[in-house]
């Protein structure tokens, strides 16, 4: 019923149509929706994670510094609304608390991996829902992970290697050398080379800035060579020359944060925010999230082709599972209902028992009462009989007495008296 016309061909335009405003329309829509960006900072306590975030976004985020006595690794997450001209950014910063402080650090990476997976899971759940609202969903998936390396000057710690290896397939990792003012320039170059070679030899995939688009290929290419960035963060502003700048003051000099000769902070800010923020988000969505989704769905038992290699519809399994679930729910409901009925019956029986008992007791008492009443009546009757008999004798005696007194003789009286006794 449907005929496809000739294949795609490019057609020349005879005039100005006007769809060159399309990118602007798209951008306007995105601006009205707002952007969101989620950063995860992984590093040992005291490496300056919070300070770096303050410096990067030129503001003071709330939070107290963590202690070294945490029993396990925890993640602390905070969301902020930033606004620059007409662009609104919902920024979420997640920091590890207590990383590297324990004596046994074997499981240190687990809470981090679980957190990242939990964000993917939440997005996947929303995507699989029947009635979903993806366009207003607050995306909490981690877009970039800044891994803070301690400035020892030697090499990566084994904890760092293990953690980065576990994270590289789940999130875009950008390693940075923290507190870089503790290392001299020559040591820094050697340190960077050592780190890069260790990462390569251990097969850790860190995020490479994209070089496929001409407008950013050049700058990204040079920046790729400067990884890992050696950064310094500072919340204090000092007057240098006639400008106020963020800097750290030592007795032997002042380290300026935004001076490219002193540290790579400016490079980090360029790469992270000004050039590649959108690419980081896209990589998270198209690569890391898709990988997670694929693994999760395969784990749940969905396949694209069934054993006969005929394309197997996800929908069929989905519906089957749904029916199964509904069946289970119904069964549970039945069970509960039956249990309820059972309980009601039992209670009813109990109450009937009690009622019966009460009736019996009542009957017993009534019978007792009747018996006693009868006894009393009997006694009363016998007493009445006695009284009657006495009255009769009394009248008879009085009669005799009156007859005897007429005949004269008190002997009969005496004899009567004796008789009476």
């Amino acid at each position, binding site marked *: *019923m*449907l005929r496809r*016309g000739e*294949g*795609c061909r*490019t*057609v020349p*335009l*005879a005039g100005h*149509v*006007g*769809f*060159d405003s399309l*990118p602007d*329309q*798209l*951008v306007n829509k995105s601006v*009205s929706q*707002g*952007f969101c960006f989620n950063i995860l900072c992984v590093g040992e306590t005291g490496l300056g994670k919070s300070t770096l975030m303050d410096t990067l976004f*030129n*503001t003071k*985020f*709330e939070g107290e510094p963590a202690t070294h006595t945490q029993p396990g690794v925890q993640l602390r997450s*905070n*969301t*902020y*609304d930033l606004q*620059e001209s007409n*662009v*609104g950014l919902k920024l979420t910063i997640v920091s590890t608390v207590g990383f590297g402080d324990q004596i046994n650090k074997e499981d240190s990476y687990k809470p981090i991996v679980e957190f990242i997976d939990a964000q993917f899971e939440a997005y996947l759940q929303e995507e699989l829902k*029947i*009635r*979903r*609202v993806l*366009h*207003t969903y*607050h995306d909490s998936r981690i877009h970039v992970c800044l891994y803070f390396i301690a400035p020892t000057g030697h090499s990566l710690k084994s904890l760092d290697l293990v953690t980065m290896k576990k994270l590289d397939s789940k999130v875009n990792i950008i390693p940075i050398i923290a507190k870089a003012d503790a290392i001299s320039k020559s040591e820094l170059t050697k340190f960077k080379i050592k780190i890069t070679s260790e990462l390569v030899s251990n097969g850790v995939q860190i995020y490479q800035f994209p070089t496929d688009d001409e407008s*950013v290929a050049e700058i990204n290419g040079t920046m790729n060579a400067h990884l890992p960035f050696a950064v310094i963060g500072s919340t204090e502003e000092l007057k240098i020359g006639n400008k106020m700048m963020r800097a750290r003051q030592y007795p032997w000099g002042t380290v300026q944060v935004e001076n490219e000769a002193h540290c790579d902070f400016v490079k980090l*800010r360029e790469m992270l*925010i*000004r*050039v590649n*923020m959108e*690419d980081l988000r*896209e990589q998270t969505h198209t690569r890391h999230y898709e990988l997670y*989704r*694929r693994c999760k*769905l395969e784990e749940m038992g*969905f*396949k694209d*082709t069934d054993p006969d290699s005929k*394309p*197997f*519809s*996800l929908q*069929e399994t*989905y519906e*089957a599972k749904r*029916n199964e679930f509904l069946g289970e729910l119904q069964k549970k409901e039945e069970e509960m209902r039956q249990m309820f009925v059972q309980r009601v019956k039992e209670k009813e029986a109990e109450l009937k028992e009690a009622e019966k008992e009460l009736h019996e007791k009542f009957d017993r008492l009534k019978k007792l009462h009747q018996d006693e009443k009868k006894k009393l009546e009997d006694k009363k009757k016998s007493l009445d009989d006695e009284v009657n008999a006495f009255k009769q004798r009394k009248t008879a005696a009085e009669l005799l007495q009156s007859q005897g007194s007429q005949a004269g003789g008190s002997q009969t009286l005496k004899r009567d008296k004796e008789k009476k006794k």
Partner: protein
Amino acid sequence: MDPLRRSPSPCSSSRPSSPSTPPCEMLGPVGIEAVLDQLKIKAMKMGFEFNIMVVGQSGLGKSTMVNTLFKSKVWKSNPPGLGVPTPQTLQLHSVTHVIEEKGVKLKLTVTDTPGFGDQINNDKCWDPILGYINEQYERYLQEEILITRQRHIPDTRVHCCVYFVPPTGHCLRPLDIEFLQRLCQTVNVVPVIARADSLTMEEREAFRRRIQQNLRTHCIDIYPQKCFDEDINDKILNSKLRDRIPFAVVGADREHLVDGRCVLGRKTKWGIIEVENMAHCEFPLLRDLLIRSHLQDLKDITHNVHYENYRVIRLNESHLLPRGPGWVNLAPASPGQLTSPRPFKVCRGAHDDSEDEF
């Protein structure tokens, strides 16, 4: 049609604000604005897609209109000759082109519906069209639910349907009303008065008011839908547009000389009707709506509202939808019914080896 089709507006809250997001003051420029340029570069690299469908009886100037809109020979205009029999059933004919302007690449797909409303008995002539639209949604859905999916799912869903109303001057015909009622719940519909050069200005206004009255009486919600207006600016802009819809348009692909300028127009004995002149016809309004200002909005509403509605119904009650070709039967097998779940054609990627079910 079915009450499940209404869904809340897309971006009803521009930024979902939660109680734990304190606004932060930045003490200096950070460079967040640069993300807009990054977005633009990426979008231009990837290119855009737009699918439009034109529906109307033959002879209303649909092909000419499309050619005028995109200023190119999208259709090789060939009016059906006398020897060609009119098609017995409704056929859908689709053409894809890539057009480029100032570095912006647009992949345009135009679907025509020759034979619509041409038969003596036009009952259920909207079914093939609905079937086609749903088939595109189905294709997208099948791609979306794959385990290993493509980076960029090709979007063949119809973003806009332009309905040509014949210039009778009276009111909407029953066929029009039936069609519009069914279609406005599945796709964005923009009705236009075709061949408006046969109506005078007063007749046009009266016709327009009557059509608007008809639309209101029958609860037909055409694009731009009132419930999707996001903020006060949108409301004002869209109310102005809604007041003028349906646009009275004239299509022309020939150029003539008027006052020394070369304009697109139709030459008649009593004058030249200039297509791009707002005093003559409302073609510029239609062009602006479809291309210059609301193209992205059309795509967004199709993706966020119509596609989601389709998806909900598809996942819940598969048996209620009109079927297109290649339908996959998902209902659980009842005894006595043959279920042969013929899988839909997905011939992309290395993992697929089913044949084309078309």
